[in-house]
């Protein structure tokens, strides 16, 4: 039952005589305005104002009421939220009130130089005189209204229903509204404000409560829960349970009725496009393509290799030719002959030639050259390191230098060989281990899997713990201290060591001056510290790699295994993203919230408002009336009218009845009825009232106000039975 705003401009303003009053129901939720004597208000809109800036020109404009959000894209609404003229149920912001009245009169079709009709406007119960007088001033001075009457909306609603026979002339009006809830006793058709009672809880609080509950339960979808949407949800789905605790029990036990009462809201969700398993042809095709690509690459490599071989052979030929020529040339002519070719001596040519031969052999085939190389290396070592074996004293200075060089080269190459050997052995070792594992797996798969899983769990726990220690468990504790070390927090080993070093450094100096840093050795302290941190960091790496290896094996072997995600400890509030978001994640489940939120009308304590709830208010109201007449109380409870926008929750009548029965003596008559139209009845009652012939006796003009002053205005009360 969403409310619809009616804001079309009316065209028949001029058809109305100036004695016909305009009736305004100025509510905290909706503003209704129309002509007296009609059954429906002409213009209805939400009682809020926005002042955004036009994007095109930058000037600030005013928008009254709620509008289609699509149109609002022309405005820059960042600095203007919707504002209401009300604080609780009292009007206090008259600038906003003026905007609203402007809009209302404009849509009513007002023309002319002033509003020349008496106005009946609603206000709250016992409106402070300041608000009343400012409203009066606004209407008199700005709009030129001839006369005004103020009335209470709940009273109008009651009178209207009384005329329709729904309730008697003695009764109780209970009006849960938008911001507040009132209970007003009526005696002889007139409201007795002395006995009335107001709690500061209403539909606004219910919606707000629901909004916050949903936002906290589904933080991922928080942006979806706008106030308007939540209000729609509330109007559609919320109900009042006859007994809160038993209903909650139902849900807690997961009974079948609870299932039926749960509503789900499916948010729009697009499943990620599923990848079909590639069909046979696909696989074959892809394999063929890959094969072709491989072939092409191999051909290219071949071509390159052969071209390189050709080049090298050419070079070799050239060098050999040169050598032959050199053999024929005489000794003395060697330099001049060689100057053309670019080589200086015979040895150079020879060494170049041997190099070419080697690379040629390598290009032609690897295994052969390996052997050749090793042999060559062996034989070369004997030549190269020829000087090593000769003792020192027999060598000249140059040769000594030579010898040292050869020593270092030899040790390096030996080291390299040793490394190669070790790696080879390690490879063998790993293969052997894998073989063993395979055998183990084949003979007892279950046990093997169990062992793997338990190892995985242990390792992951160890890593988690270490991580938690490292970050001091900052985020999970909720203390808000990010990595800093405060007093009383556990330090891990590295930090403890660091602290120790720093304090010893401080204490080692004599008392008096702090000469840390004067000597260079002092700074070595920091080298120690960072080394400690590094040591700590290396360990987890091994564990991490081990963990990764185990998890990959498990994934291969165990169909039910799901690897644990790294961020387990830091973001528990979000849904674990190990699996893609499913449809269920996008469903908002509405179970307990359906009846928990309207329940605050009966228990405002849940919101922190320290006042009585709706059912107790009836008792308070009757007590305040302090009438000695018991019959009156019975008459009051015999005709209880529930009106106001927040009374539309299903189940409210039964609940109220049960509640009031608790506080009345046993057997007293209780009759609770809902108004014919809880939302519109206030306006209709006011309209009926304003069209009565005696209405003009109840209004006051500007003259009255000026002459009599504020005190008189304070005691002004409308007489409802005309």
């Amino acid at each position, binding site marked *: 039952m969403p409310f619809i705003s009616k804001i079309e401009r009316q065209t028949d303003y001029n058809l109305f005589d100036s004695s016909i009053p305009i009736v305004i129901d100025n509510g905290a939720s909706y503003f209704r305005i129309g002509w007296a004597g009609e059954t429906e208000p002409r213009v209805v809109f939400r009682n809020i104002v926005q002042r955004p800036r036009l994007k095109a020109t930058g000037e600030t404009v005013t928008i009254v009421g709620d509008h289609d959000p699509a149109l609002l894209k022309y405005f820059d609404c960042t600095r203007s939220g919707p504002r209401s003229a009300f604080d609780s149920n009292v009007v206090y912001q008259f600038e906003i009130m003026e905007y609203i009245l402007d809009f209302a009169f404009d849509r009513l079709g007002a023309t002319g*130089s002033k509003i020349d009709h008496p106005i009946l406007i609603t206000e709250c119960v016992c409106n402070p005189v300041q608000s009343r007088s400012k409203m009066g001033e606004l209407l008199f001075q700005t709009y030129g209204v001839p006369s005004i009457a103020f009335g209470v909306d709940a009273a109008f609603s009651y009178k209207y229903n009384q005329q329709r026979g729904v309730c008697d002339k003695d009764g109780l009006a209970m009006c849960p509204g938008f911001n507040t809830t009132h209970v007003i006793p009526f005696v002889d058709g007139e409201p007795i404000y002395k006995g009335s009672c107001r709690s500061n809880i209403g539909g606004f609080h219910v919606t707000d409560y629901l909004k916050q509950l949903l936002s906290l339960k589904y933080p991922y979808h928080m942006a979806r829960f706008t106030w308007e949407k939540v209000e729609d949800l509330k109007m559609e789905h919320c109900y009042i349970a006859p007994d809160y*605790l038993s209903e909650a*029990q139902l849900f807690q036990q997961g009974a079948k009725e609870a299932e039926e009462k749960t509503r789900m809201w499916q948010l729009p969700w697009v499943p990620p496009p599923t990848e079909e398993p590639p069909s046979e042809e696909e696989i074959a095709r892809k394999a063929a393509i890959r094969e072709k690509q491989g072939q092409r690459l191999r051909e290219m490599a071949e071509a390159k290799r052969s071209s390189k071989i050709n080049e090298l052979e050419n070079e070799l030929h050239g060098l050999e030719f040169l050598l032959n020529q050199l053999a024929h040339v005489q000794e003395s002519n060697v330099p001049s002959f060689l100057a053309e070719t670019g080589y200086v001596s015979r040895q150079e040519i020879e060494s170049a030639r041997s190099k070419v031969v080697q690379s040629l052999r390598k290009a032609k085939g690897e295994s052969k050259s390996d052997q050749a190389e090793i042999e060559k290396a062996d034989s070369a070592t004997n030549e190269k390191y020829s000087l090593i074996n000769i003792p020192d004293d027999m060598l000249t200075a140059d040769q000594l230098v030579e010898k040292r060089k050869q020593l270092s080269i030899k040790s390096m190459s030996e080291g390299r060989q040793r490394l190669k050997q070790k790696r080879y052995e390690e490879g063998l070792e790993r293969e052997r281990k894998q073989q063993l594992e395979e055998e183990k797996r084949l003979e007892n798969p279950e046990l093997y899997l169990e062992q793997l899983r338990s190892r995985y769990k242990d390792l992951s726990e160890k890593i988690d713990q270490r991580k938690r220690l490292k970050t001091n468990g900052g985020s999970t504790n909720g203390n808000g201290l990010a990595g800093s070390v405060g007093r009383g927090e556990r330090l891990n080993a590295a930090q403890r060591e660091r602290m120790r070093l720093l304090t010893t450094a401080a204490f080692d100096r004599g008392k008096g001056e702090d000469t840390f840093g004067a000597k260079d050795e002092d700074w070595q302290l920091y080298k120690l510290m960072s080394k400690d941190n590094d040591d700590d960091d290396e360990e987890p790496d091994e564990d991490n790699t081990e963990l990764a290896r185990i998890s990959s094996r498990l994934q291969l072997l165990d169909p039910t295994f799901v690897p644990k995600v790294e961020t387990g400890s830091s973001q528990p509030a979000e849904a674990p993203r190990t699996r893609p978001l499913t449809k269920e994640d996008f469903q908002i489940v509405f179970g*307990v919230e359906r009846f928990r939120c309207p329940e605050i009308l009966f228990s405002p304590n849940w919101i922190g408002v320290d006042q009585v709830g709706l059912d107790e208010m009836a008792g308070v109201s009757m007590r305040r009336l302090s009438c000695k007449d018991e019959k009156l109380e019975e008459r009051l409870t015999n005709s209880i009218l529930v009106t106001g926008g927040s009374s539309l929750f299903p189940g409210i009548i039964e609940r109220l009845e049960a509640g009031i029965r608790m506080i009345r003596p046993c057997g007293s008559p209780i009759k609770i009825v809902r108004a014919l139209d809880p939302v519109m009845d206030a306006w209709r009652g006011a309209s009926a009232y304003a069209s009565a012939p005696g209405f003009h006796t109840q209004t006051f003009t500007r003259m009255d106000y000026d002459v009599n002053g504020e005190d008189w205005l304070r005691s002004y009360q409308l007489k409802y039975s005309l």
Partner: protein
Amino acid sequence: MEAEIMEAELVLPNYLSFKRIQMYDKYPKGQSRGRHWKHLKQIIQAENYQNYPPDEPNYVNIESPPSMRPCKRICDITGYEAPYYDPKTNLRYANTDVFKMIRSLPNEHVQRYLAMRNAAIVLK
């Protein structure tokens, strides 16, 4: 543009014939628009209700008193009945599963749950 015409209806026009004083006269631009409208609390204070006989109903004395009944305590998270409460976060909870969830909530959420109940400690 058609949309602009629609907006012309959205936006309140500056000049309205039936008004004696237009808005731009009343609240000229450039003046501090930080309105000093009195809030409800200030209005009530200024009313000086204590000077008037306490019998007469006025805005303050028709307010309801606190509840006489013992308050029903419900779990902050789920809404079930909650006989227990967590001393560290001050939240009420119904059973152990909810308790585990409470302990894993980030601090911001805890404060918001408490604020719903008006029990959050606000440090200004």
